[in-house]
């Protein structure tokens, strides 16, 4: 509690009040471009010559783009514009996800390419115990509040959301905050999604093409099947299992 609560009853603010008030615009439909940055160097731990050479010849970050369209409580997330720099890089598992989320009904359909297979995960939206903080940051021009959480028992995530967007969604499978998540970081997995642009355009729900391709599964059985296939892969196997389930 102690950390919280500050009310600035400062009389000198009165002058500026007229410019705010009820004119604040709330957004309930539009498109957001997310930039995903994966730190390739941080995945390579250790200090021998091989790793040094790898780092010299590979960019530190792999940047990919996604587009999140939203209309009230429905969101549609899909790969965005192409980054030709990535033509030289390996494709990572589950990095081209297409996700349709119906936030009111807590339902999500995700299409994920994991190695040679395409999976269609039909499951409930991820329920996350968000811890709200009083830290703020401006992202893509929006004032955002920070919330932290642990998902999948051990993965620490940090989200910044704005209450100026009414849709309580976010990139990938992240949602459940009182506003749109504009930045999401998984610091120990070295990956960040940041909103770079917001288009406040009308979005028709018919634009949301609910993915239908792939082997039908649920999150629990997807985890089982990938885990058993990759059990001999050591720490990379664990990393791929995590990446596939985000």
């Amino acid at each position, binding site marked *: 509690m102690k950390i*919280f*609560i500050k*009310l*600035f*009853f400062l009389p*000198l*603010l*009165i002058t*500026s009040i007229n410019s*705010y*008030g*009820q004119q*604040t615009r*709330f957004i*309930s439909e539009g498109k957001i471009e997310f930039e995903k940055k994966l*730190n390739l160097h941080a995945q390579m731990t250790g*200090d*021998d*010559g*091989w790793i*040094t*050479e790898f780092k010299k*010849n*590979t960019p530190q970050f792999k940047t990919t783009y996604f587009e999140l369209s939203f209309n*009230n409580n429905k969101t549609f997330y899909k790969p965005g514009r192409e980054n030709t720099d*990535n*033509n*030289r*890089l390996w494709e990572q598992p589950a990095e081209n996800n297409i996700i349709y989320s119906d936030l009111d009904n*807590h339902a999500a359909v995700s299409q994920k390419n994991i*190695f*040679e*297979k395409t999976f269609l995960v039909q499951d409930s939206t991820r*329920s996350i115990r*968000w*811890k*709200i*903080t009083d*830290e*703020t*940051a*401006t992202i893509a021009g929006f*004032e955002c*509040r920070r*919330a932290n959480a*642990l998902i999948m028992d051990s993965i*620490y995530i940090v989200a910044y959301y704005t*209450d100026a967007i*009414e849709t*309580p969604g976010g990139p990938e499978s992240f949602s*459940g905050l*009182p506003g749109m998540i504009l930045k999401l*970081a998984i*610091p*120990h997995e*070295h990956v960040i999604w940041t909103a770079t642009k917001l288009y406040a355009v009308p979005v028709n729900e018919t634009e949301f093409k609910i993915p239908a391709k792939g082997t039908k599964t649920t999150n629990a059985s997807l985890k089982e099947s*990938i885990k058993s*296939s*990759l059990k*001999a892969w050591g720490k990379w196997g664990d990393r791929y299992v995590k990446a596939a389930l985000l």
Partner: protein
Amino acid sequence: MRKFLFVFLAMTLLVLSSAEAQKASLRGTITDTLNKQNLSHAVIAVLQAKDSVLVNFTRSDAKGHFEITNLPAGKFVLLTCYPSYADFADTISFKENEVLDLGMIPMITKAHLLEEVVVKQTVGAIRIKGDTIEYRADSFKVQANASVEDLLKKMPGMQVDKNGQITASGVRVQKVLVDGEEFFGDDPTLVTQNIRADMVDKVQVFDKKSDQATFTGIDDGQKTKTINLKLKDDKKKGYFGKIDAGAGTNNFYNRELMFNKFRKKEKISFYGIHSNTGKTGLNWQDKRSFGDDNSSNIVFDDGGNSFVSVSAGDGLESWDGNYNGLGYPKVKTAGLHYNNKWADDNQSINGNYKMLDMIVNGKSATNTQYILPDTLYYNNQKQTFTNQITKNKGNATYDIQFDSTSSLKILMDGSFDHKLTYNEYYTEALARDSSLVNQGNRKISTTGDINGFNSSFLWRKKLKKKGRTISWNTKQNYSTNTTSGFLYADNNFYRGGAVVQNQITDQYKKDENKSLAFDTKFTYTEPLSKIASMVFNYGITINNSTSNRSSFNKSAAGKYEALDTVYSNNYQFNIFSQKGGAALSLIKKKYSFNLGTNVGYTQFVQTDLKSNITAKRDFVNWYPNANFSYSLASQSRVSVTYNGSTLQPSLQQIQPVRTNDDPLNIVIGNASLQPSFRNSINLNYNKFQALSGRSIWLGINYTNTNNAFATKDFVDSLGRRVSQSINVDGNHNLSGYLSYGFKLFGANVGLNSNINSSRYVNVVNRKENITYSNVYSFGGYAGKTVEKIYANSISANATYTTSTSSIQKNVLTHYWTYNIRPDLDFFLPGKFQLHNDCDFIFREKTSVFDNNNNVILWNAWFGKKLLKGDAMLIKLSANDILNNNIGFNRTVNTNYITQNTYSTIQRYYLLSVVWNFNKNGPKPGQ
């Protein structure tokens, strides 16, 4: 604006523990008290009082009203937010079934307070590098386990407010990076990992230009105040090592010592091996820990793929290095390795020194069938050998990264080898009817010194435009090889069972070879678009070599003084070439494409240094290449590669002198030998399914060579052979492999097949001979590992070899070879381990080679791990339990087929103790 109210009931599930009845509800109205206006769309969130976890939230309706139902009983924080308004937070608590009406909740707009900045000066702890202010973290005292924020608070010019917001020089810091990556302070209630103040080495504060500005190099004036925390190098310091001591029956021994000491990024290690079991150097795992990890061999291609070009060894590891199974070796070898990095890893040095002392002795027997146009010869040879080599080799690499755009790499290596050989031969040649053609004894002893010094530097620079690069690579190689020795050969030649001729060669020989080469090359890459680029290169190569070969016959006085001009020559071969070209490369997500050629002008200057006669020859050489690679689906790719290359003849092939090291096999150089040109086409397809474990690898290669180097043999009626290198056309080779891997009952199973079909041309007794050889191989593999219980595998393959020569089509060579290799490891209770591997080799007899060459080579060991962390292993091993091993080699060449058997290590038992020790180092076995 929509009238929307969303209530998240799901969240209430998470707080089931705190209450049974869930009927409490909350209502109120959000209002702007100053503006006397109710606020719609405001967020009203209910958080758990104890840890701020979000329980439920809603938004106020058009009239500013809100209601949240189904709340559990307990203590909560109500947080009300509205853009541009100050947050309102209050503690509330519900009893069961309570309906709490909060009435009006007042909200007020907020403004930003510009806090005053106090700048103090602390000398020494702060450095200013260009636009960057750098603080040394050690200079600021903080409590043990203090957070990074605590550290920043101590730094002059820096302020951290209670929200964690950092202000530097009065400007709000918008980005905090850790080693270049965006930093989010960890929530200590959720994660234990955290960056502590004592982990930070330096704090850098700078104005980060926009990505666009960094990209284009044009400053657009947009700057972000950024802090970069540079973490300290791992505070690691320690050592680890391994001692392996083994003694066995028949005087077998194997002793190894390895030690590695590390401190931050500095590593110093050494190893020593003393063994007669065939071990001559570090194995692959030990090499990474105790030797040079060969990282300079990693090659990255344009597609971002990395390849490891594992060189055939640095010389120390083949006979002229490694013991390859021929004879009985005694080895002493040692190495020293040092590497270090400094200046933020922008400079590094890597140095190695190795020495090897090896004595190998043994016996071998060689049987050869020569096919001639009109007859056949059978040649039998017995050899006894004692060879000794002492090698010293040192190398060093220095790498410097000047800035993010340019780097320089300097490599140097030098070696000194001293070699002594002694060989005795008994030879006999039989005609088709088994009558004796010739018979002889020969002894050769040599002493040789081989020295070399090589260096290279590579400078690379990225220019301002993305993808535009320039590089300059220069190499130098210098080597000398001086060998002297005695040859004594006594041969009798028979006709009809009677000696018709006796030939004695008794000579002292001295050969001196020197070579000096320079190679320099400029490469420039110009991006044409985001996906296409052109690469231009130009280079010059100079390669000057001389070979002075002298043979002296023994005089009547018993001295080797009279120069035998037939077998002596002093020759210089200088090659000058310049080469330039361009290549276009295109990389798309689905495919990549590469096409280009180099063209070269090469000049040979060949001088007989005794007669001073010089011959000059000019060549225009082409080096075309093309590559197309297409990805059919994820993890599946097909590629086609074409490569055309020019091979220059060696001085040994060119020098016009007769070499009589074996007077029955005289080799003559060919001064008019031309470069050969090889076309090679590869087709590859591979598919790897990670989840199902299925894989397919297919490769087809076709090579044809124009002006290929081949031999022209002449064998006379007394069985003496004279051969010379010549150029021939029409050599080609087709090879293919196919392998399929899958999972079956939890085991990895694989099937594979290889085929190789070739057509080689040579000249035998003035007749063109075309040899068709085919090798077909089929095999399979199965392996299963159950962790801590067993790791078993078996592989088997069958190979069929055929060969025919056009000069005697009725002589057919064909035989099968079978190989079965089980490899079994059992991990028994009590940390015992039992290992068995076996090699069943069955070689079909042929009409020429009718002796039994089947071998069952069975090795095993039994061991127990002891001590904490399994640091010690006591092991009893048995090599070749059935005492069945024979050295064996069978080769089919153009018009001759050779089988070679030799003495090799057979049965012995060895008891050894392996101890892995370490302090703060990696765990044994990792």
